[in-house]
């Protein structure tokens, strides 16, 4: 980072020379060393999380697919299908001597299970992970509590390392582990009753997570008043639920939707709103500052809520928050509590990179670099309130909740 000095050209050359050698592996730096590369998502330079989102909510064009394939060119086997080819790769896992056969079987099943849940557009990724982990408990053949816990831990680790870019997946797994294993229920003398208790708890947690969206929608109604104009960015299922509930409550409001390049999730969102007869207007992403003066409230979803109280969300959130902050508009974030992650980014680059192919419509010369990051980090000072299923919180409370949860 000496580039800001005048000698940046020299520095940069040196820097490049230094990094040239390990470049083929550089994408793998973020993967955790112990599990080697076995359960890794084969397309590790593309964020699976954002790919799923795109598949669910985006308006996909043909070049998008073409470019996606080009971007992952080094993997010959990819064909757009996400989970199916995973069967071969994660087997190597285990390394744990004795129960290798069983361990690999589990790893296989948990990711598979997860992927099958993930296919449902209405289901958040974290909830899919929670369901998958609950399935692990159910199908487990462990005979002691310790064994079961280890198995669960392994499953959640493999899930987490399968997609390191997804914050809500990681957070969902962590929350599940805490919720399920930190309980006095484990002190049953009888293993089977303890296990059934665990399963019960797991189901309950899954239900709570599903209900979270409803709770948030109810809580946020007080903040939508008649005649207000709401700016939304990206496709957030929680925000959609909030607006849907508001429309059902016969509130009169207007929505401005950003386009949400590159997967153009805003188009999809405006479609959904138009179905509800809510007046909606589409903006290109660069028109945010232009229209901000007519906006009353800015509403975001979140891919992850981090310890500082800030959020990680689709690219463009930060700049909208900045514009809103400078024009003194309130910025509200709707997020379920299972998206709270033990993570403290200090700046934009302080996260494991989540990349996503971008379609520019025209071929880009190879000398031109493209910023492909799929998400950005919005610091807490630009957020007004967070609507969560724990209540309406200020950003600073997030950390308090997390401390209480994890300590």
């Amino acid at each position, binding site marked *: 980072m000496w580039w*800001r000095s005048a000698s940046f050209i020299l520095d940069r050359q040196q820097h490049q020379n230094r990094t040239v050698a390990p470049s083929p592996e550089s994408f793998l730096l973020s993967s955790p060393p112990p599990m080697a590369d076995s359960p890794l998502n084969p397309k590790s330079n593309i964020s699976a999380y954002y790919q799923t989102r795109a598949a669910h909510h985006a308006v996909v064009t043909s070049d998008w697919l073409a470019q996606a394939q080009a971007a992952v060119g080094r993997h010959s086997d990819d064909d757009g299908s996400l989970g199916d080819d995973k069967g071969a790769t994660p087997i190597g896992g285990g390394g744990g001597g004795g129960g290798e056969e069983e361990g690999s079987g589990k790893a296989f099943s948990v990711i598979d299970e997860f992927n099958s849940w993930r296919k449902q557009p209405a289901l958040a990724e974290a909830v899919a992970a929670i369901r998958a982990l609950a399935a692990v408990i159910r199908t487990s053949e462990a005979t002691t509590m310790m064994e079961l816990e280890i198995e669960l831990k392994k499953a959640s680790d493999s899930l987490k390392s399968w997609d390191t870019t997804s914050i809500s997946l990681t957070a969902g797994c962590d929350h599940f582990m805490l919720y399920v294993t930190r309980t006095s229920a484990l002190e049953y003398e009888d293993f089977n009753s303890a296990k059934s208790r665990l399963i019960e708890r797991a189901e309950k947690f899954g239900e709570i997570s599903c209900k979270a969206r409803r709770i948030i929608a109810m809580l946020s109604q007080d903040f939508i008043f008649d005649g207000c104009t709401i700016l939304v960015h990206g496709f957030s299922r929680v925000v959609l639920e909030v607006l849907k509930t508001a429309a059902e409550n016969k509130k009169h409001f207007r929505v401005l939707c950003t386009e949400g390049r590159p997967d153009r999730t805003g188009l999809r969102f405006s479609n959904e709103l138009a179905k509800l007869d809510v007046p909606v207007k589409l903006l290109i992403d660069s028109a945010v500052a232009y229209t901000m003066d007519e906006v009353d409230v800015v509403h975001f979803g979140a891919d992850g809520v981090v310890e500082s109280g800030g959020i990680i969300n689709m690219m463009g959130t930060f700049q909208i928050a900045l514009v809103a902050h400078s024009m003194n508009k309130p910025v509200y974030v709707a997020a379920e509590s299972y998206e709270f992650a033990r993570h403290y980014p*200090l700046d934009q680059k302080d996260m494991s990179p989540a990349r996503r192919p971008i379609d520019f419509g025209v071929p880009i010369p190879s000398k031109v670099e493209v910023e492909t990051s799929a998400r950005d980090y919005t610091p807490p000072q630009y957020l007004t309130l967070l609507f969560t299923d724990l209540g309406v919180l200020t950003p600073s409370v997030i*950390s308090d909740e997390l401390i209480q949860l994890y300590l």
Partner: protein
Amino acid sequence: MDARRMSRAVPRVRQVGFFTPNTPAQQPQPQSAAPSSESPPLSDSPASNSLSPVMIPPPRHLSDNLGGRTAAVPVPGRENSGELPTVGSYNPSESVLWLDSPPRSRIGDEELSEGAESSLGWYRRSDSAKFASSLPSGGFNLSTAKHPDSVAAVEAKNPLPEQSEAQKEQASSSKPLKAKTTKAERRALQESQRAAKAASRAEANKSGTPGGAPSSKPMKQPPQKKDGPPVASSIAASERIGVDRSVEKERKKDLPPPRKQFDDESRGGRAKRRSVLNQPEARNRVELFRHLPPHKNGTQLPYLGSKFFELHEKHPAVYKVGLQYLAGDLSGGNARCIAMLQAFQEAIRDYSTPPEKTLTRDLTSKIGGFVSFLIECRPLSMSMGNAIRFLKSRIARLPLTLSESEAKTTLCSDIDRFINEKIVLADKVILRHAATKIRDGDVLLTYGSSCVVEMILLYAHELGKQFRVVVVDSHPMLEGQKLLRRLLVKGLSCTYTQLNAISYVMHKVTRVFLGASSIFSNGTVYSTVGTASVAMVAHAFRVPVLVCCEAYKFHERVQLDSICFNELGDPDAISKVPGRVDVNYLDNLTDKQKENLELLNLKYDATPSDYISVIVTDYGMIPPTSVPVIVRGYRKEYLLI
């Protein structure tokens, strides 16, 4: 014995330190200017010399307060009402403000119980002021000078003693009510009022003293330290002619007394008696920081060494640690805390309960004695305060059934556990957290020498991360050089610069790592002086600031500035550069010139939480807003373990 004159008898306060921009009217006052030929010895020097190290001159002139006070508090003496006309020009909103300054009614109980010494100080001061007030001083802008409207102005030099007699005469004669009564009547009324007031005050004292918010009105007033004045008071005595002593003493009660403000030890009297070190004289201490205990430098070492056999109740280990504090051999929050705890541990090992005493009580008081000895040597840091609290709560929680040897081993192992868990292991956890924030190609900046930051840098280096370190340093401690040396030995690439250059280097920096002496529950970081400016510059350049601090240093206090609580360093350390004759410009000042020089060597400052991106503790990385959560949880925990 002119009543009006006496009421003005207030020390003149020198204007130093922080000025508010809206008190420029005081500039014309020839405070330190040469032309006022005989006024310096008369008004200046007595005022500044007479203050004992711990006294703060009353924040506002008596008659300044009058406007507010006459409304709020019963007027203690008729002579004051004579001045009302001078007050009449005040605008009411300001007089409301003045209510905030200490009213006369808080003149303390201690004042009553005080010995003659402090009153001597008062006499002398009032005398000099009287003298000054009789000096003709024309062209003095009364109205502007009397409208200071901020705390800084409160501390500022007060012009009133110079008010001319003529003005006063005019003022009193213009008061119609005043003219009606005879002198005898006034005296009688005055006496009765005084009696009533004394009675009510005695009541108030019995019912308890108000808790002391430092530097504000309801200050609890410990008795004044009586070390300064003896010499000065003899001068005062010679100056005093025909002043009725008893009346004077009584009047003194009506003046706001100087404040003693050793923030922590409110039991000043006892502390004084127990004090084993000579207090350095109060000469040339900056006004705003006179409430802080003066620096005790290592020159007292031989003195303390000679007193070793008198202090037989101090354990040698504690004594040794105290000497190390005094000499400055031990510095750094953790090192000091560990040394103290280990000394206590040894003292506990050698302890045996005296007959007819219980271990719990006797040991607690013993530890209290050790602590006050250590405070004598150097003020405690917050972390040490927390550790002492832990130890005392452990002692208090010892089961009564435990035998003495068992109790002692329990305590020793508790101390070991505290050191191990709260300091050593905590540091390891912090290392691991902080290292995740160091990336290849980073440029890390650190200020001064913090042992945690040093460990982080070395740990990250061991992990094979490629980064550069910028060590920023400042006079007079130059601790950064120590750190720099240790880093260079390990093969890190470093840049060394002084604090002056901070804004130049900052734009190349990607992370700022700072240590802290303590963190308060509003997120304020209390750390080596200079830290605040580093954090501020980093914030302005949008560089993330990471403060690394063990959770045992968190404190539930709230602090907004670095004035009310701080530590003073050796003032000579900043005026002299050892070994550099060519830059010691302050060496050959005459005594008279030195009288106008005040040196301020602060040890700590408070960094507002806005400038801090993250606090790295043993509980993980938290934003500064979450400190209270840790403080709450932590308190519970260390009382229970």
